């Protein structure tokens, strides 16, 4: 079987985000493989190690630097990678068009993708890709196993969680709790350099830019009052806080 694991490259959680001329400027920021996608790479490897006769292909769409995130996936253990170079911004629903075509060309059986990406804060990529392929999808999965052609697992929903079974092919949205992603070891990082990283051109996929256009990006830092109360006298501190909340903030407590 073939497993596609989607990889986005995003700023590290601690990275400072800069805005330049109304747009996010990632120049100089530390960029990493999206944490949510990393669970997907790890899970693909575990399915393979668990006995599935699987080829694991990491797929990334983005500017040249996306290569680094794909190399990380290769160093973790993916067999090969496909990089569709794209400089302009694509929205997730448009991007799903590219992913679905790659899945078809590759004859993929399973797509793993982070349930939410840390750059767009979007949850649309997995479900939109599944819809284009006519496949089912399960989002926010935190437990997964493969028995024959059937995936069994558990995922979070608004009111709790569900256990599910679904036959391949399917799209699985990954998240925390699913596994603990491994760190690439030095020998594996060296090996990854020799693995295939195919370059692809966006034009091939019939996609002509985003349908949701970003007009402007801003960082609004809300001024907070930062009123600190010394807690040495707990009763006094508690009543002072409640007084501020009720009378200054006008919160109904």
């Amino acid at each position, binding site marked *: 079987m073939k497993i596609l694991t989607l990889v986005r490259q995003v700023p590290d959680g601690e990275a400072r*985000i800069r805005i330049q001329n109304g747009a996010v400027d990632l120049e100089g920021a530390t960029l990493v493989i999206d944490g949510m996608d990393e669970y997907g790479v790890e899970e693909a490897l575990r399915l393979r190690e668990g006995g599935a006769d699987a080829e694991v292909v990491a797929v990334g769409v983005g500017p040249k630097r996306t290569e680094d995130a794909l190399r990380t996936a290769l160093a973790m253990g993916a067999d090969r990678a496909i990089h569709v170079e794209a400089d302009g911004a694509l929205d*997730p*629903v448009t991007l799903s068009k590219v992913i679905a075509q790659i899945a078809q060309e590759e004859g993929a059986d399973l797509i793993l993708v982070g349930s939410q990406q840390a750059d767009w804060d979007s949850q649309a990529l997995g479900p939109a890709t599944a819809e284009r392929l006519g496949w089912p999808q399960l989002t926010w999965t935190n437990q997964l196993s493969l028995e024959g052609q059937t995936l*069994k697992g558990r995922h979070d929903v608004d009111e709790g969680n569900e256990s599910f079974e679904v036959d391949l092919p399917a799209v699985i949205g990954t998240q925390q709790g699913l596994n603990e992603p491994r760190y690439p070891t030095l020998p594996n990082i060296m090996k990854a350099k020799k693995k295939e990283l195919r370059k692809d051109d966006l034009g091939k996929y019939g996609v002509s830019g985003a349908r949701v*256009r970003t007009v402007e990006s801003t960082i609004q830092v809300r001024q907070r009052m930062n009123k*600190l109360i010394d807690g040495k006298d707990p009763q006094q501190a508690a009543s002072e806080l409640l007084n501020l909340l009720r009378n200054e903030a006008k919160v109904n407590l």
Partner: protein
Amino acid sequence: MILIVAEYSGGKLAKSTLEMVAAAHASGREGPLTALVLGQGVASIADEVAPYVDQVLVGDDARLASYNPELWAAATAQIASEGEAHTVFVAGSRAGREFSARVAVKLDAPLLEDVISLEGAGSALRAQRYTYLARVTETVEADAPVLIVSVKPGAFPAAEPQATAGEQYDVDLELPASRVRITGKTVEKSSRVPLAEADVVVTGGRGVGSPERFAELIETLADNIGAGVGATRAVVDAGWRPYSEQVGQTGKTVAPQAYIAVGVSGAVQHMSGMGKSKYIVAVNKDPEAPIFKVADYGIVGDLNVIVPALIEATRR
């Protein structure tokens, strides 16, 4: 027409539905405001939503007995096409953000996801949404014959009822067979207000120390002030609290009137889920904790004595 897919939970209309109505009004889009109610035995939901819209379409069908993204997407796309909807509103819940993406593909429509504001701009729609772990506010725009919009919970005030309630009509749906078999379901029931709807949230972090202390301190304080209970990932990972209470990047996003963080350090991933709260309160013994930088009010001290004092002062 403008189509709103009604959201409900536990047999009651969710606040998110009234927020979608408000978002529809804010969008300046024209045409009859239509609510679509999907499910089985949903007559009371239809009655509840009717006063807020011009008409209600009711898809009451045994196959819709529980939420399923493929079925919800198929039904929504079918009704949107038949009714020539130009704008489709879906709640920004987990379910909504999932099936709205499928609807966007089915209708070949752009998706404005998880919006916090809306403004009509000619035939286009302009929206604001948070990106980069809610550190950036982005203004986005789309212009197409059909637009799909998911609305962030809590971003719009709940709409008021109209003078006359909308008429109700039953609809017949062509639904695909579900390919996912749900073999078990755990509903994390809570007697408290749902996190996304709570005006006040009390969240406990690792500093609380143990699951027992969490119940004793955080739950009691929350109950005294009618608040929802939240937890950090550290607490959820430790197994002290269920995942449904986690606030942050990989948990829920909340924006209550007041967010009270107790024994929480204030990591970016946590703040991405609560940073938009109107007032942030922190109780932490470390005056250097990052949470104080975003706090409006803070008590520097040991939560083991501060929280009991708060509980005492709020005892009903």
